[in-house]
C-alpha cells in the first residue's frame, strides 16, 4: 500500500480524535457511568483471558460485540486496530518522526507475555493482563505512582526506539498478529519457544499464587495490617482477576474505592474500599456497571443492596459512647440498614453492631467522629461476599 500524504494526514486526524475521545472517556467527569467501561472493554484479549479464567462468559451481549469486532478486524486486516484506533499506540507513535532509531530492546517478548496471560487464565489467574494496552490507558484516569509511571516510561523509551511497546511488548498486538489469517501460522511458528515458556510460566505462577497469598496472609496478621474490603459484587479471586484498569476507582461517586498501598504481591495496586469520610452508598452500583473484567460482577441494585461485603465492629475503648460517656451514636445515625442497636448505660446510648443486618457499607466508619485514638468502628471484610437474608 502506497502511503500518500493525504492518507497519512487522515490517519493522524482519526488517531488523535480517538486518543482524545479515549482520554475523555477515561477521565469521565459528567459522562454517563457506562462510558467509563468503553476503553478497557474494547480489548478482545481481556474478554477471552477473563472468560477462560472465570470459566464463564461474563460479558453480556452488548459488551461482547466491540471486542469481537476488533478481533474480526484483525483476522482480515491484521494490526489495523493498532495503527488506526489504539489510543496507546497513537501516544507512542507521536515521537516517531524525531525518534532515534536505536535498538535497545532487541528481542520481542510480546508472545511470551501473551502466553503467560493465557497460561495463567487456564489455571484461573490471568497474570500480566494488566499490561493490556487498553487497561493501561484506562489506568490514566487515576494517578498512582507505580502503575502510573508505565506510560510516561515507554513514551520516553519511544524517543529512542520507535514504538517499542507496540512492536516488542504489546500482548494485544501479538493477539492480532496471531488472529491475522495471513500471518498467524508464521507468527506462531516463529514464537513457539515463547509459546511453551509463556504457558508454563503463566500456569506455574498462577498455580503457586494461592500459596503465596496464604503465606503473605500470615504476615498481614503479624503486621496487624487490615485485609481489604472489596467492592460489592467482587468475586472470590478478585485480586488476580482484576486488571487494575481503575474504572471503578474513577467512577465511585463518593471516592471510597482507592488503590491499595502495600499488601501481598497478588493484591498489588488492587482497588479496595477505604471509608474515610463516606460509606458505600445504599442505592449505587456504578462500580459493578463499569468493571470490564467481571472482577466486580454486574449485580443489579436489588442484589447489591443485600450483598454483605463486610461486618462492622465497634472498638469500645475508643468509642465516645462506651468510653467517654458522650452522646454520640453517629454510627447508628449514618447506618442505612439499622444494623446498630443501642445499649443504654445509664443515660448514655452505646452502639452494638447486629452482624445479621450489617452489610459492611462503612457508612459508620466513614462518619465516626471519635478522635482520641482514631475511629472507633471498623469494617472487616467478608469473603466470599454473601447475600444478607435479614434485610427488609
Amino acid at each position, binding site marked *: 500500500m502506497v502511503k500518500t500524504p493525504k492518507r497519512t494526514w487522515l490517519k493522524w486526524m482519526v488517531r488523535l480524535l480517538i486518543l482524545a475521545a479515549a482520554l475523555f472517556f477515561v477521565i469521565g467527569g459528567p459522562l454517563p457511568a457506562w462510558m467509563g467501561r468503553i476503553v478497557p472493554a474494547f480489548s478482545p484479549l481481556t474478554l477471552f483471558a477473563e472468560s477462560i479464567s472465570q470459566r464463564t462468559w461474563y460479558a453480556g451481549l452488548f459488551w461482547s460485540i466491540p471486542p469481537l469486532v476488533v478481533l474480526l478486524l484483525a483476522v482480515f486486516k491484521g494490526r489495523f486496530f493498532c495503527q488506526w484506533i489504539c489510543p496507546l499506540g497513537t501516544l507512542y507513535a507521536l515521537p516517531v518522526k524525531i525518534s532515534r532509531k536505536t535498538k535497545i530492546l532487541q528481542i520481542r517478548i510480546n508472545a511470551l507475555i501473551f502466553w503467560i496471560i493465557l497460561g495463567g487464565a487456564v489455571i484461573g489467574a490471568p497474570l500480566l493482563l494488566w499490561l493490556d494496552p487498553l487497561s493501561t490507558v484506562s489506568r490514566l484516569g487515576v494517578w498512582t505512582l507505580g502503575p502510573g509511571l508505565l506510560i510516561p516510561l515507554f513514551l520516553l523509551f519511544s524517543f529512542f526506539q520507535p514504538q517499542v511497546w507496540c512492536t516488542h511488548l504489546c500482548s494485544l498486538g501479538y493477539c492480532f498478529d496471531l488472529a491475522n489469517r495471513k500471518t498467524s501460522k508464521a507468527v506462531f511458528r516463529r514464537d513457539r519457544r515463547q509459546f511453551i515458556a509463556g504457558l508454563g510460566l503463566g500456569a506455574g505462577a498462577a498455580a503457586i499464587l494461592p500459596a503465596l497469598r496464604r503465606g503473605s496472609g500470615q504476615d498481614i496478621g503479624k503486621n496487624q495490617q487490615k485485609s481489604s474490603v472489596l467492592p460489592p459484587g467482587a468475586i472470590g479471586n478478585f485480586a488476580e482477576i482484576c486488571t487494575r484498569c481503575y474504572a471503578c476507582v474513577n467512577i465511585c*461517586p*463518593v471516592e471510597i474505592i482507592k488503590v491499595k498501598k502495600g499488601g501481598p504481591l497478588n493484591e498489588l495496586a488492587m482497588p479496595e474500599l477505604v471509608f474515610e469520610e*463516606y460509606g458505600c*452508598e*445504599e*442505592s*449505587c452500583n456504578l462500580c459493578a456497571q463499569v468493571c470490564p473484567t467481571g472482577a466486580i460482577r454486574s449485580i443489579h441494585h436489588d442484589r447489591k443492596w443485600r450483598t454483605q461485603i463486610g461486618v462492622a465492629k465497634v472498638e469500645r475503648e475508643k468509642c*465516645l459512647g462506651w468510653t*467517654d460517656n*458522650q*452522646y*454520640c*451514636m*453517629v454510627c*447508628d*445515625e*449514618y*447506618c*442505612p440498614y*439499622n444494623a*446498630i442497636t*443501642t445499649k443504654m448505660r445509664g*443515660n448514655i*446510648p452505646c452502639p452494638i453492631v447486629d452482624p445479621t443486618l450489617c452489610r459492611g457499607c462503612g457508612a459508620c466508619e466513614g*462518619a465516626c*467522629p*471519635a*478522635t*482520641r485514638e482514631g475511629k472507633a468502628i471498623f469494617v472487616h471484610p467478608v469473603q466470599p461476599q454473601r447475600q444478607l437474608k435479614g434485610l427488609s
Partner: protein
Amino acid sequence: MQKLTRREFVKAGALGTAALAAAPAVSTAAAKDKTDVWVFEGESNRALMEACMKTIYENGGFGPNAKKVALKVNAAWDRTPEQAANTHPELVDVFLEKVIETGVKVVMPELPCQRAGKSFVSSGLQAVADKHKVKMIDLKKEKREFVDIEIPGGKTLKKERVARDFLEADAVVNMPVAKHHGGGTLTMCMKNWMGAAEGRKFWHVKGLHQCIADFSSFMKPTWAIIDATRCMTSRGPQGPSEDMIYPHQLIVSQDQVAADSVAALLFHDSPYKVNYLEIARDMGIGETETSNMNIHRITV
C-alpha cells in the same frame, strides 16, 4: 427581640474573621411576654403551609426590608418524603412560592450527611428548588462557603464555621422535620443547625447537647417551622422506621426553643427528656415551659 447574635454579626460586618467579642449575651428578658407558638393541624400539607405563611406575614413576615431569606431545610438523607428523614417537599414548595411572590430571594444551603446527588434528589427538595429557580447549595462541596464565627454565649462551643449564606441573609428560617435521633434524642430546630456548621463532627467529641444549645444561642432564626406532618419515633435520623406517627402538624414560632419544646411533647411527656432543651432552659436561650407560651391551635 430575637435574632440577636446572628444579626449583630451581620451588622458588625465582620464576615471572614469575625471579631464578635463584645456582642451582647442572649437576652432572657424577652421571656416576659408570653411566647407565641402556632400549631397548625390538618391533613393537607399545602393547606397547612398556606395557613402558616399567612400567619407569618400577619406577624411581621421576614422584616420590612428583607431581600434575601436563607432557608435551612433538612435534606441530609437519601430517603423519600414518606420516610420522614427530610423536610417534606410539599411544605417547602408552598414556602418558596409565597416568599418569592413578594419579590424576596431565597437560598437553601444544606450540609447533607450523604452525597447531595442522592439526598437532595431523593428528598424531593432539589426538584422543588428547581421549580422555583432557587439555589440549593451543597455545603459539602462548597467548603469556601464557611465563615469563622465566635459564639459569645457558648459554654463548650465558642467558635464554629458557619455557612456564609446564613450570615448574609436578611432573615433565616429553620424548617426541619421532627424525628427521633440516636444521639440527640430528637431532631428539631436546634439540632437542625448542625447542617449549617462545618465542624459538626467534633460536637460529639465535645459534648453533643451542649454544643447544640451553644450554637442555637448564636443561630436564631426569624421563623422556626417544624414539619411534624409525619414523624419517626425510632431508628432516626435516617430510618427507615417502623414506628411512624402522623400528627399532621406544623409547629411555628419566632422562638426556636419554644417550637422545639412543643414539638418534643409529640414524642415525650416532657421537653426535658431532650437534654439540649434542658440546657437551653438553663442558659435562657428560649422558652421551654408551655405555661409561658401562647399556643394558638389552628385546625386547617
